[in-house]
């Protein structure tokens, strides 16, 4: 210890401590001087500013990014909306102000009062919404009587507006006012109580891109809360624009074709996996969601037996009917149970054990090869092929064709469909698989279920040479300045379990179905304008006894679903479609003409 006492003596320290004390005094003198300046010199000014909490922040809502189709047609726009708000502290007497607003604008007092009670928060300086989206006449009245209405402020903010209400509703989705639960979740940080957020479809999917950034204003207000000066402004930042892959012209045409019908259609570019159109009928009004629905409107929408809110293209599971014969044909050729020349004789029925399975054509097709069996949709041919393949192998091929699992489209809540096997039946139904059921599966009846998007992806794969592509709905996202942030890209999710030769045979069969006079779609899908290939399907619907006991007024309920899948032009396909019309009857009667018109509309317009 003694050494250190010698190195530094206490006087040295004392000297330095005196210097430190002087520095401390100096700093305190500066602090006191500043305090004197604020409280004594400027005290009056600050006292005045404090009396009404005069310096306030007003938020500026950002315009939501727009949504366009692949060609730049705007689908979701914004329009200015004027909300009448009341700041309780400025109003002093809120009831009286509400009464004045009511007598001035004619809006019922009870309604204003109800909104005021519902929306008010614990902060008496926060504007409370009393009438949302008022018209220009109300706005003008409120503005001109500004000084009689203490505490009333008009908030301008962009409100979502769907230019073609109800069109492409399931893919574009809608935005609505943020819920309390959403507001509290960390995913929605920076949102304000009345922010619009995407609730469904692309609006929800691309929410982080579409939502811009709030700006704000520092303002000075007078005693009745009116802005006397804007001190500083930070502009809101607009959200980013989303371009979808859909062709809106085609979409509208396709939706028009579904007028009065229930069902779904999906059109895909088989080369890129881009979804060109996606119809789910019936649709719903998106603007109703933005503006807020009454309880009655909401009730009607949810209770509608045709289920308008469901996206049938990805969420509805249907038995595939004869379009499934594409899968059976691929399986039969790849397993080697048939080749191009194998012919089966169709007398109009097929005996299996002690049961008789009928062909849809009572008179039979005679001796048919696989190409003609596809073209004419001969059931007997596929009964025999299916019997030889067996249910387990058939299920393996169905999965290889993308069935029984989601396609991976970005939209939420996609359904899996169902590929039945012996094990599935044991687990779910509790009985063993029956040999006869394999025959039904082979022609797309029995337990098999598919979604329209799965069939569209499968058809696109047949068209493009065998690659299953994950369907995409996003073309690109760009900033308002035009900088591209993200591009949608399809990835291959698998390859059809078919040799190039087998695929050629399937395509030949699909070509003949449309272009051969004996083909099932000759009358309904043959086009003089272009070369279409396709496959019809008629899916039997198992009706419950009560439904079939009905007196006939609900006959349509037990009519089969009508299917058509196809692509065009046959030699170098640029569009593949899958169409299902619920209870539309035969595939050729309802679905095929719609599919043909969709393909014609797309290719004739240069798609």
């Amino acid at each position, binding site marked *: 210890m003694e050494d*250190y*006492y010698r*190195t*530094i*003596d*206490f006087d*040295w*320290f*004392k000297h*330095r*401590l005196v210097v*430190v*004390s002087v520095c*401390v*005094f100096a*700093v*305190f003198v*500066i*602090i*006191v001087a*500043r*305090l*004197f300046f*604020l*409280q*004594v010199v*400027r*005290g*009056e*000014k*600050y*006292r005045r*500013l*404090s*009396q009404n*909490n005069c*310096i306030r*922040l007003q938020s500026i809502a950002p315009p939501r990014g727009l949504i366009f189709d692949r060609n730049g047609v705007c689908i979701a726009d914004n329009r200015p909306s004027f909300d009448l708000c009341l700041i309780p*502290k400025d109003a002093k007497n809120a009831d009286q102000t509400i009464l004045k607003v009511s007598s001035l604008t004619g809006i019922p007092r009870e309604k204003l009062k109800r909104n005021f009670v519902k929306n008010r928060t614990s*902060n*008496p*300086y926060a504007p409370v919404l009393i009438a949302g989206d008022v018209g220009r006449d109300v706005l003008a009245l409120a503005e001109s009587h500004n000084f009689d209405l203490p505490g009333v402020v008009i908030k301008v903010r962009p409100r979502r507006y769907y230019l073609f209400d109800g069109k492409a509703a399931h893919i574009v989705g809608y935005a609505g006012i943020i819920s309390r639960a959403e507001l509290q979740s960390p995913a929605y940080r920076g949102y304000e109580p009345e922010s619009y957020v995407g609730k469904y479809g692309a609006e929800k999917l691309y929410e982080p891109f579409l939502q811009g950034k709030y*700006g*704000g204003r*520092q303002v000075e207000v007078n005693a009745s809360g009116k802005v006397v000066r804007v*001190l*500083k*402004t*930070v502009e809101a930042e607009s959200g980013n624009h989303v371009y979808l892959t859909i062709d809106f012209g085609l979409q509208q045409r396709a939706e028009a074709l579904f007028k009065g019908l229930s069902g779904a259609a999906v059109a895909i570019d088989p080369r890129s996996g881009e979804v060109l159109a996606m119809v789910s009928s019936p649709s719903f009004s998106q603007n109703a969601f933005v503006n807020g629905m009454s309880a009655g409107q909401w009730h009607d929408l949810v209770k509608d037996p045709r289920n308008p809110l469901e996206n049938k293209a990805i969420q509805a599971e249907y038995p595939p009917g004869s379009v499934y014969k594409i899968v059976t044909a691929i399986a039969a050729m790849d397993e080697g149970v048939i080749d191009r020349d194998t012919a089966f004789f169709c007398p109009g029925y097929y005996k299996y054990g002690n049961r008789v399975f009928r062909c849809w054509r009572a008179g039979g097709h005679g001796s048919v090869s696989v190409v003609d069996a596809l073209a004419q949709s001969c059931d007997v041919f596929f009964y025999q092929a299916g019997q030889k393949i067996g249910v387990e192998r058939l299920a393996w091929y169905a999965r290889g064709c993308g069935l029984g699992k989601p396609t991976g489209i970005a939209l939420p809540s996609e359904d899996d469909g169902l590929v039945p096997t012996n094990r599935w039946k044991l687990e779910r139904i509790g009985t063993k698989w029956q040999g006869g059921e394999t025959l039904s599966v082979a022609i797309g009846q029995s337990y098999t279920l598919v979604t329209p998007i799965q069939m569209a992806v499968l058809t696109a794969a047949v068209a493009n040479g065998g690659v299953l592509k994950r369907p995409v709905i996003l073309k690109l996202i760009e900033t308002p300045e035009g900088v591209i942030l993200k591009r949608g890209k399809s990835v291959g999710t698998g390859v059809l379990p078919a040799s190039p030769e087998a695929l050629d045979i399937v395509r030949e069969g699909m070509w003949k179905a449309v272009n051969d006079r004996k083909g099932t779609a000759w009358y309904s899908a043959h086009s003089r304008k272009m070369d279409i290939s396709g496959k019809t399907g008629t899916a039997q619907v198992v009706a419950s006894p009560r439904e079939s006991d009905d007196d006939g007024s609900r006959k349509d309920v037990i009519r089969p679903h009508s299917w058509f899948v196809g692509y065009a032009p046959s030699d170098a396909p640029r569009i593949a479609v899958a169409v299902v019309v619920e209870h539309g009857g035969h595939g050729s009667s309802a679905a095929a003409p719609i599919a043909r018109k969709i393909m014609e509309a797309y290719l004739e317009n240069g798609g």
Partner: protein
Amino acid sequence: MGDVWQKKKLDWGLLLPVVALGVIGVTVLYSAAASEPVYLQRMLCIKQATWILIGLAIACTSPFFNYKKLEGWAVAIYAVSIALLVCVLLWGKSAGGARRWLSLGPVAMQPSELAKIAVVLILARYYNKHADMEGLGIKKIIVPILLTAVPFLLVVKQPDLGTALMIALVAASVTVFMKIEKRALYTLACMSAILAAAGWFFFLKGYQKERILTFLNPERDPLGAGYHIIQSKIAIGSGMIFGKGFMQGTQNALSFLPEQYTDFVFSVMAEEWGFVGSIVVLVLYLLIIIWGLSIGYQCRDNFGIIMSVGITSIVFWHVAVNVGMVMGLLPVVGVPLPLISYGGSSVITFMIGIALLLNISMRRSGVE
């Protein structure tokens, strides 16, 4: 070891201003929390009062312990506080985007507060061994820089810029007090300028630069820090000479002031008690600081002198930066006002500091 402390009385000159500030703190907190529900308002005050009483108990019993032992323990204390800072980063409770708290059963503590004292102790030990009247050369200054940089960076990572800044300022104060050789001073200045420039141009991303610029100039962020400073200035200024009176403040009432219990508590006080009240509070702080320095002045032990300077500088920098910030003189940085801002870790840390000063004061004769 003699019973020196028994012969000396408790240092009331230091303790009285501390008690006064504690009482003022709870009173102002009651007012600042007026917009909260009554139970919450009471709970905040009771908690704060409890922390102050616990702190006073620590301060009053400290003389039973000889501060000189701390010189031997400094390394261990430093190591523990670094370990705690690492724990915070790994398992800390996060709140508002930062990880600052460690849960210890029912209470949460902020190890970054403890780190301030640990840095003072380790530096006092180091300088006691290595410093001389010539000043510190560049070789001798590297170790203290490293000893400071480790906790500094760990706290920056949380991120808690205010506390990190305090650690740096306190370490710098102690070092400057020990005198730095001219050459070393110039070298350090050049090196930090080069580092800062390189960081600015090569390492910092756009948004990080924006954050620093906003920090230096709150006006750049009129919806955030800039708005808070304006509100704070209005609150302070509107207090005028005699203040609006207890519970009469309007700026604090409606959450117009951010962090009104912690970083902006001075504004609430100044609004209600005016220039007169603010001067009283500032004089109390000045008393503590000058008293702390005078304890060093009378101390006959180098370690004790350096330590008393370090601890006093903790109090000084918190007061200067906090009050400077709420009055719009300094950048907006979250630093508590000693003994008045709400918060257990902060109160206990200052009280430990006071306890050490008391201890040094009572053994100032240096008699072992």
